């Protein structure tokens, strides 16, 4: 504790340099925070994927459909508890900037498989009675200020024309991680109105009695539809979500590359600053060693300085990033979640301190090993 004033005066010694170094850390950690926010958002679907669900899609591509008749055949596979399906609608509400995912769902079965969502019974009843009815996630309700009873016009893109829906209810997530920025409506409404894809669905979800049988059942399903016009590719929901993520490129790799470049640059900047600082203080370090400060103590004083730069800068950067995320998703709902988790804050501060340590270790070792007589002779 008694050495803190000594570290403090050194931090204040070159105010501009201190501010710039701390600023470098702040900017780098702000970027790091944003990268982790984006990574979390992209990988969120993988994280929340149900362990007991399989996704069955067209083997050629996710955008190719499957026949609705597969539902019954899937339900007959040993180990399958229940089956539901959905289709991507892809409409535009007012403007393309108002993007949110819309799914045509098999109303009878969808909610029983996706038990992480709940809808009030009376709202569910209303939905089931109204062919043009829709259920809105509470995240979307917040975003657009909709309420039950509102009529929502959506311009079809894949399915042309203006589609109108009545809000019958709001579905809520049972856990904070649940994606509640979705829009569900009856598949039957889509099937009746659009003749181009009649009898076809986007994908199936298969709920298993025993998740440990997932590989066997997936193989059975794919073999069952092999050599048919609509061959299937079946995988766990987690693998499906991860594969979907991969289609956008190896985001994790890109983020790691960007993060590494940022931190390496920061390491060079801070290391260089610390080296200059130690060089400027050669005389003082020699005097302190003359007075009885041991090499190890000198090393700790300089390392502490470097780590404080890193920690303060990191805290500022991550703090600003946290404040930024609290303002809400700037992509208007493109990202399922937009938050900086405590785990990533801790990781950021840890990396920050590590960079501070690495940046300071060489200059402080040089200071530790400084020969007093040589240093005094240089004065």
């Amino acid at each position, binding site marked *: 504790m*008694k050495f803190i004033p000594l570290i403090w005066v050194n931090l204040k010694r070159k105010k501009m340099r201190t501010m710039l170094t701390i600023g470098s850390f702040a900017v780098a950690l702000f970027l790091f925070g944003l990268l982790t926010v984006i990574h979390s958002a992209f990988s969120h679907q993988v994280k929340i994927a149900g362990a007991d669900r399989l996704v069955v899609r067209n083997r050629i591509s996710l955008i190719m459909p499957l026949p609705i008749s597969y539902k019954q055949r899937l339900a007959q596979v040993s180990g399958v508890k229940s089956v539901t399906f959905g289709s991507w609608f892809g409409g535009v509400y007012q403007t393309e900037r108002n993007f949110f995912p819309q799914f045509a769902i098999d109303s009878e079965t969808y909610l029983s498989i996706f038990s992480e969502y709940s809808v009030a019974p009376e709202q569910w009843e209303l939905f089931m009675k109204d062919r043009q009815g829709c259920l809105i996630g509470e995240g979307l309700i917040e975003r657009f200020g909709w309420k039950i009873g509102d009529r929502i016009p959506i311009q079809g893109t894949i399915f042309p024309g203006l589609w109108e829906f009545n809000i019958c209810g709001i579905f809520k997530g049972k856990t904070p991680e649940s994606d509640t920025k979705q829009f569900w409506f009856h598949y039957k409404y889509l099937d009746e109105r659009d003749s181009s894809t009649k009898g076809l669905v986007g994908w199936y979800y298969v709920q298993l009695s025993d998740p440990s049988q997932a590989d066997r059942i997936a193989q059975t399903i794919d073999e069952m539809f092999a050599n048919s016009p609509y061959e299937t590719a079946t995988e766990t929901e987690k693998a499906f979500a991860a594969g979907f993520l991969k289609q956008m490129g190896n985001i994790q790799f890109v983020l790691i590359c960007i993060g590494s470049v940022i931190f390496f640059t920061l390491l060079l900047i801070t290391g260089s600053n610390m080296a200059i600082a130690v060089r400027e203080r050669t005389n003082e370090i020699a005097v302190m060693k003359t*007075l*009885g400060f041991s090499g190890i103590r000198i090393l700790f004083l300089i390392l502490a300085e470097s780590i404080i730069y890193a920690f303060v800068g990191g805290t500022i950067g991550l703090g600003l990033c946290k404040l930024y995320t609290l303002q809400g998703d700037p992509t208007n709902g493109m990202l399922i979640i937009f938050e900086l988790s405590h785990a990533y804050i801790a990781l950021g501060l840890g990396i920050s301190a590590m960079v501070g340590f690495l940046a300071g270790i060489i200059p402080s070792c040089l200071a530790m090993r400084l020969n007093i007589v040589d240093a005094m002779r240089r004065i």
Partner: protein
Amino acid sequence: MNEIKENQTKSLIQVRNLSKTYKRGNEKIEVLKNLNLDINQGEFVSFMGPSGSGKTTLLNLLGGLDVPTSGSVRIGDAEITSLSGKQLTSWRARHVGFIFQLYNLIPVLTAFQNVELPLLLTKLSKQDRKKHVEAALSIVGLGNRMHHYPRQLSGGQEQRVAIARAIVSDPSFLLCDEPTGDLDRSSANEILDLLSRLIQEFSKTILMVTHDPIAAERSKKVLHLEKGVLIEAQNKD
């Protein structure tokens, strides 16, 4: 030499056959050659001699800042030439006060903080450190300049702060490397008066390197070094 033998038992500092050789490329430079010296507690000794005669090297060896090529230095009960680097560091903090020609104060610390620096290495409480620092600064007559930074002080005042820093931990002896070399005559005299006072009132032992014969006049003994050899000793007793 007879005097050395007589004083051998009571000397604070005993130097025996001390040699120091530096290497510059393939060339060996013998800075000190078989030096023998005894200095008693409370003595004020000056070392004079031309540049390169080995004065500062001798001071560095006596202060444990450098190690000799051969020979020994005993100070009090400690044979410092056999101490490890770590032991020497700790020994210096307890036993030696250093005063430099260019004061060597830390510019970002106040006079108080500069003087407190050696005490940070002790187990003294903050309150005790404060008392010691105030006492040291009042001895050098700077009790009213405690919170001034070095840049706010004159050269003479800076050197007085350096002296306060040297005496604050109550060392056995003070090593002064041209303490008046950067001062005008009047300030130099003030510093020399202060050093004399430290001997008279606090029985400090002072070893001073100087080029200034007037400064050397203040000491009890003047030793001349030439080419690494002690060639003359003037004892004013």
